[in-house]
Structure formats: C-alpha cells, structure tokens
C-alpha cells in the first residue's frame, strides 16, 4: 500500500489560447499551484511504481484479481505503452467519447476502452479525483467482471 500526497482536481485553463502568449508557461504554473493544493489520498498501485501520478485520478487497485491482472499486463511492453499513453491522455483530459462507457452490470463504474487494454473507474464525487480500480488486458474482462460483482455497485 502506497500513501502519497494527492491533489485536488485541477481546473482547466479558461483563457483563450490566442490572447495568452504565455499559455504554456501559465498552464504549467497553474498546474503546479493546483498540485500544491494537496489533500491526503491513499493510493494502491499494486506495486507498479511506474504508474504516473495525476491530479485527475488516483489508483485504488484493491482486489487481488485487479493486482494480478495489472502485473500480468505490465509484462507486455505494447500493452504497457498503451496504458501509459492512455493515462497521460486522461491526465490532460484528452480522452475521446468512444474511449468511455458505462460498465455493464454496475451502476457506478465507468469503463475506459483503449485498443487492447481496459480500465475501470469509479468517478470521483464532489471534486475528488476519479479512482482507477482496475487496469487489464481486454481478454481479462470476464475475470475482472466476476471479481467485481460483489465488491462494487
């Protein structure tokens, strides 16, 4: 179990890029400020420290199956690359609508669909970051669904 300082959800810059010459610089400053508005969140990365921190989401891979499936995925270089790219897009708020769906059979969970990998998300409430509950290969969907049946709504 890893405990890290996690941040409140960052506000997206509202200014027009055309009128802000120092947009990138200001964005970085604002992100840093946002990152400094810390509150304590507990994270569980299943021992995969390469998973990047974000102010948009935290990791809570708490079930044995979720941990095992992530560790298996991490042995596949292409899948790992896809997940890291997907997380970077999530951090920047760049996921397209086709990547996100309600997770069938669960009222509260969302599914992030990448090409060969999937993530299950518990959307954050009241400004809290989203919780990533599972990251797995597409072929492990059935195992994860069965595992999550009695644990999540």
């Amino acid at each position, binding site marked *: 179990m890893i405990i890290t300082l996690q941040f409140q959800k960052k506000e997206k810059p509202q200014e027009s890029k055309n009128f802000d010459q120092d947009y990138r610089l200001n964005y970085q400053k604002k992100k840093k400020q946002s990152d400094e508005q810390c509150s304590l969140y507990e994270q569980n990365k299943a021992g995969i420290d390469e998973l990047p921190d974000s102010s948009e989401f935290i990791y809570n891979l708490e079930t044995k199956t979720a941990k095992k499936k992530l560790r298996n995925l991490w042995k596949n270089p*292409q899948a790992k690359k896809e997940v890291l790219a997907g997380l970077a897009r999530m951090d920047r708020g760049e996921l397209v609508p086709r990547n996100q*769906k*309600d997770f069938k059979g669960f009222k509260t969970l969302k599914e992030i*669909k990448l*090409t060969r990998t999937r993530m299950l998300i518990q959307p954050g409430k009241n400004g809290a970051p989203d919780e990533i509950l599972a990251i797995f290969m597409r072929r492990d969907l*059935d195992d994860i669904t069965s595992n999550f049946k009695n644990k999540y709504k």
Partner: protein
Amino acid sequence: MKIKRIEFAEEITDVNNDNIDVLVENEDGYTYTIGVGTPQDLLEEMNQEKTNFVQPGTIMIIVKKLTKEIVTEAIQAYAEDDGYWLKLHQFADSIDISILNKLEAEHHKEREEF
C-alpha cells in the same frame, strides 16, 4: 470449436456505429473477449483521433450491424474448425515477435530456393 455462450459485455449505443466487447465461452468453459465493431465506428475512430488510419493493434471483428443475430453468425464463423481465428483475436497482441520472425525467415528461404 463449439460455442456455449455469447454475451454482449456492454450496452450498444448505435447498432450501425459502435464497438463492443463480446464474451464467448467455449465448451470447456474458457471465455474469450472479442472486440466487434462496425465500419462506421472505425471511420468515427479516425475522425475523433484525427488520423487517416485505424491504430495498430485494433483487433476487431467487423460486422454490418451490431445485432445479436449478426454477431452470433460472425462469431460462429471465426470459431469454425479449431477456432483458429477466434484464438488469434484473443491472443494476437501477445504473440512473441520471434515467432513472426521465424515465419518470415522460413518464407524468405523458401523464395530463395524457388
């Protein structure tokens, strides 16, 4: 390969324009997760991602419409004989490059001998 169960793992938003994961259980109780989508969905992917091609690694069965009947028909076709194409869809992203390199080398040698 005999199929025991075919189940849509997600709700379909548009039968003409969507992609879904389909759970396919064989008679031994093993479950494959197969991506099934429509041509329109691939076009939408390219538009949303602002690319001129579908990303590498997109292993999907393409159907005209995402109806239970058509998807079942397609899955049955992929599962024919020893289920080679169904298995390829399940494991294509995990085939070690050395296997492909070996096939390429064998074919190369075969052409040289010809």
